């Protein structure tokens, strides 16, 4: 398995096969084959784009919800997590260690919409004992991508 290839694609899904082949010192046919294998093995799950939605005028609000869950005999963490993840509003579901059980990230158009979603869809699940909703106020870095503009390079133009 080509870890270097994965790291490159992980950083930028839009590298062309030719560019990947050059950077890896490989050839296009091999790279294409490797990518196909990674995709069919479910190691590459998707090629999503990290978008700074706040820069656009669309109102969008996200929240991180901590769920404390009481798993039943035939309805454990797994089932609850898989039920919650089916909602379009739900971007992320993690099973966590520590003070709460499931971390759910939800996206909506307004604060009220998100709060209503939590109240109507998540709190009402039998196994859910409590929820704590935290709204995201500002994103700085997401999936290794810096969103706030930070001029990182102070090296100047030229040096010998």
């Amino acid at each position, binding site marked *: 398995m080509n870890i*270097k290839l994965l790291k*490159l694609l992980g950083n*930028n899904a839009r*590298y062309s096969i030719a*560019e990947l082949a*050059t*950077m*890896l*010192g490989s050839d296009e046919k091999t790279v294409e084959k490797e990518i196909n294998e990674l995709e069919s093995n479910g190691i590459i799950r998707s090629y999503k784009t990290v978008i700074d939605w706040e820069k656009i005028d669309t109102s969008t609000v996200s929240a991180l919800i901590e769920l404390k869950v009481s798993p039943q005999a035939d309805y454990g963490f797994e089932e609850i997590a898989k039920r919650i993840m089916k909602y379009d509003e739900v971007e992320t579901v993690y099973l966590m260690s520590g003070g709460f059980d499931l971390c759910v990230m939800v996206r909506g158009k307004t604060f009220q919409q998100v709060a209503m979603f939590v109240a109507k869809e998540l709190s009402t699940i039998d196994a859910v004992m409590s929820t704590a909703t935290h709204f995201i106020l500002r994103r700085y870095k997401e999936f290794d991508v810096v969103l706030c503009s930070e001029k990182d*390079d102070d*090296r*100047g*133009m*030229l*040096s*010998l």
Partner: protein
Amino acid sequence: MIDYSKILNKCVTEIKPSGIRKFFDIAEQMSDVISLGVGEPDFPTPWHIRSEGIRSLEKGKTRYSSNHGLLTLREEISSFMNRKYGVDYDPASEILVTVGGSEAIDGAIRAVVEPGDEVIIPQPSYVCYEPITLLAGGTPVIIETKAENEFKITPEELKAVITPKTKALILPYPCNPTGAVMRKKDLEAIAKVLKDTNIIVISDEIYAELTFGDEKHTSFASIDDMRERTITVNGFSKAYSMTGWRMGFACGPAPILSQITKIHQFAIMCAPTTSQYAAIEALRNGDADIAKMAEEYDMRRRLIVDGFNKIGLTCRNPLGAFYAFPSIQSTGMTSEEFCEKLLYSKKVALVPGTAFGRGGEGFIRASYCYSVDHIKTALSRIQEFVEEL
């Protein structure tokens, strides 16, 4: 009224300042310039190294260290040189911690070169060797290395310039700006020429950890019979991204090192103590950081070399450092013309090869210590420029 021309050291005033200073200044003033012109890593110093430096300040380690450098650091340097390059240096008498590799080169040349001595310097290469030789009263003797020889020195070229006055040979490999590397076989051939001479070799190996391809870096002192005549210079700037910390070292036989240390004692006292503590951490736990950065550079290297060749600017395969040195001869322009026109028309800053010696005419230096996206953008602007010629 003081006439400064009468009081300043002519040896210094006669050294020509870098011819491209003007060009640098223009590039800095323009906006939206994309540069491939710097000579230092884009990675910040790894956190654990920075933390160690900060911790040493918090603990109040702000006094002079031993002139030679902290003993712990010298022991780590000795261990580093041994495990990486198979060369043994005694921390007590054969290693000096300096203010960057720059001070080590200066000290080495000053300890060895007397007025009238000849110093063989391959070019194109880093700009400091000639001026420092002149300041020591020596005579630079340039070997114009050739593209067909991958900018390495050949034994024939070396033999042709050795005279009874030759005191030292500078070996700057891996090389800035050419990216050239001398493999073991190449160095052995040079060693053969030097074997029955008294010529001292100053081996500037600052880019040693950025060696690509099938072979790791060979330190000149590891070649049979060469240790007794070699001053090995290395440091932390390029390998560990510690340029601003000013950390380097010189290693060599005790009789030479003791004299370099003498100069260092009087001129510098000691290298920055904070940096030394950080450097210890770098050597102890930084191998993984080097490997990660080197891997990244390797990918960018392939990308930029391929990019230049596709544009029609023939670029040989640089096997070290982080510079590509493509030829712009196909455009019919001089290096300076090319870089100036490129800067004004496409706002891309590159360094003309002539900054590194006459033999750099017809070449340009492009650093790849930038992100892949940055390199790609620069290449596409350069391509537009060349197509519009």
